[in-house]
């Protein structure tokens, strides 16, 4: 059973295409991460799926209903947590949740009861009567999430849910999301933070220029980079180029796969034979008289996957021209 189906979705703002034929399938109960830089089309996707925006063409189904043909059926079944707190700042937490409950047509009594219950669940019971303007960023986000959950939606859209939050607020949101997922909610999460996608998502779609450029689990995406890498930090930045030659030879990696970072005095290269490459690197550096501060073998990070995937595409060339 699929919760979200997206086929060939297109949306342009004037001449600028925000979505350019995006495809996506999310099975029920999954957490799907949509990862991409600013302007990749992530928010446009969420706004279309949550019925805020009409697509130019293509098809989007949420909970079995087409978002343009049956928006109200979709609206009863989704929760939306956008980039900015979507609550009425001038009202209290209780007033907000009761108002939203009424607008979901629960009736006054049920709306009040549900509001009180959600405030308790989100640890906002004591501050329920205070105006939101006096809430901290994390509290506001929690109330926002509570408002998204009034109907216990089957599908929840989280559009960069932790942008602008401190580490503690971020952890709070992550915990809440995990708890929801345990309860069977399908979550579509957009993020610029690779760590966030890695932490929360079962599968990740990497989006750039309005299209999915890679799709898979975090492990699969990392594997695309060719497995493990070796990192060497040299003592003297002047020896970095020499070190890169040694590491490249030891790792048997082609020259374009070797990355050097002068600021961190680091050379990084993909390796196939872990121990062989490590041994040869140590010996090679000693023979060339290069002093190393750190040598390590590691899995690639999602950051590297992302840079690898988005690097050198036609769009980047355009940006250089502009």
């Amino acid at each position, binding site marked *: 059973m699929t919760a979200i189906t997206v086929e060939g979705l297109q949306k342009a703002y004037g001449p600028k295409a925000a979505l350019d034929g995006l495809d996506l399938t999310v099975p029920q109960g999954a957490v799907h991460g949509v990862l991409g830089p600013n302007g990749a089309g992530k928010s446009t996707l969420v706004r279309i799926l949550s019925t805020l925006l009409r697509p130019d063409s293509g098809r989007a189904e949420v909970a079995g209903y087409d978002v343009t043909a049956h928006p109200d059926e979709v609206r009863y079944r989704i929760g939306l947590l956008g980039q900015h707190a979507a609550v009425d700042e001038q009202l209290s937490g209780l007033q907000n949740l009761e108002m939203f409950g009424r*607008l979901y047509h629960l009736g006054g009594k049920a709306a009040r009861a549900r509001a009180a219950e959600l405030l308790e669940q989100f640890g906002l019971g004591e501050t329920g009567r205070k105006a939101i303007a006096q809430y901290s960023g994390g509290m506001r986000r929690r109330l926002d999430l509570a408002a998204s959950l009034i109907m216990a939606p089957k599908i929840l859209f989280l559009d960069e849910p932790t942008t602008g939050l401190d580490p503690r607020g971020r952890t709070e949101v992550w915990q809440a999301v995990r708890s929801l997922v345990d309860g069977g909610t399908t979550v579509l999460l957009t993020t610029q933070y690779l760590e966030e996608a890695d932490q929360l998502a079962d599968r990740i779609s990497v989006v750039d220029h309005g299209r999915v450029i890679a799709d898979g689990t975090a492990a699969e995406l990392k594997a695309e980079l060719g497995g493990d890498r070796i990192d060497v930090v040299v003592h003297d930045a002047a020896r970095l180029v020499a070190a890169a030659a040694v590491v490249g030879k030891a790792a048997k990696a082609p020259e374009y796969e070797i990355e050097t970072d002068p600021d961190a005095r680091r050379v990084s290269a993909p390796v196939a034979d872990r121990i062989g490459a490590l041994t040869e690197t140590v010996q090679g550096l000693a023979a060339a008289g290069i002093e190393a501060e750190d040598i390590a073998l590691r899995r690639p990070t999602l950051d590297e996957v992302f840079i690898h995937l988005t690097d050198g595409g036609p769009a980047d060339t355009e940006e250089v021209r502009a």
Partner: protein
Amino acid sequence: MSLQTDATIPGKPARGSALTWAVVDGWTMTRRGFAHWARQPGPQIAGLLFSVMLLTVFYYLFGGGMTIEGGGDYKEFLIPGMLALTMAFGLETTMTELTQDLNKGVIDRFRSMPMARSAVLVGRSLTDMAQSVVGLLVLIGAGLAMGWRWHGSAGAALAAVGLLLLLRFAMLWLGIFLGLVAGRPEMVMAVQILVWPIGFLSSAITSPGMMPGWLGTIAEWNPMSATATAARDLFGNDLGATGGSWVVEHAVLMAAVWPVLLIAVFFPLAVRKYQRLSR
């Protein structure tokens, strides 16, 4: 934090006709506006005091130097004019409040919910109209305290109040339209500045007959002038010399025609613009 206990979620929300929900949701949104007042009464009280202050400034400070054509009592002329001016300035309130709402995330929540599409605008209308009724009563009270009286029948006085509120209703939809078009608080600033010259280029506080000829004609045709003159007429107050121009002679008619015309133009434009937020 456990989120599994959703004891109070009803199996299914109540179903009803679209019209029922338009009324219920519109009322929920109106209550939201009232809740804002209750939580932050300061700006509302300041707004009321401002209109009373404007009235006292014009009467006690400028009043001595004001001459109306025909030489009648300025108070008789001024107070209905101030009522019309206050209704017209309601445009600012509507535009400011709507723009603030549109620029906050909460509008996205409303639009992602299965509530009646009309509710946001219905709530805005009812809240603003209620505020204007209060504003009118306070200004009329202030006028009475200053010695102003109406001389006509109670029915005619009520008709005057009705025409004043009709002007406010027209300004409401103009304000909603401008708020949707401008979208940003900076644009509200421009309108806030422009309402003053446009407001004064009318018969609200001075006789157009005392202005340079062509300017006086524009002032006479200002929709606000029609309402001000009609209110003076219905309250049985001093009209000032009318100079026999057609639009002044037919002020009561024009006080109905102008707002209805404005509503006929800006109501559909505003609704269309609101529906197009999803484009």
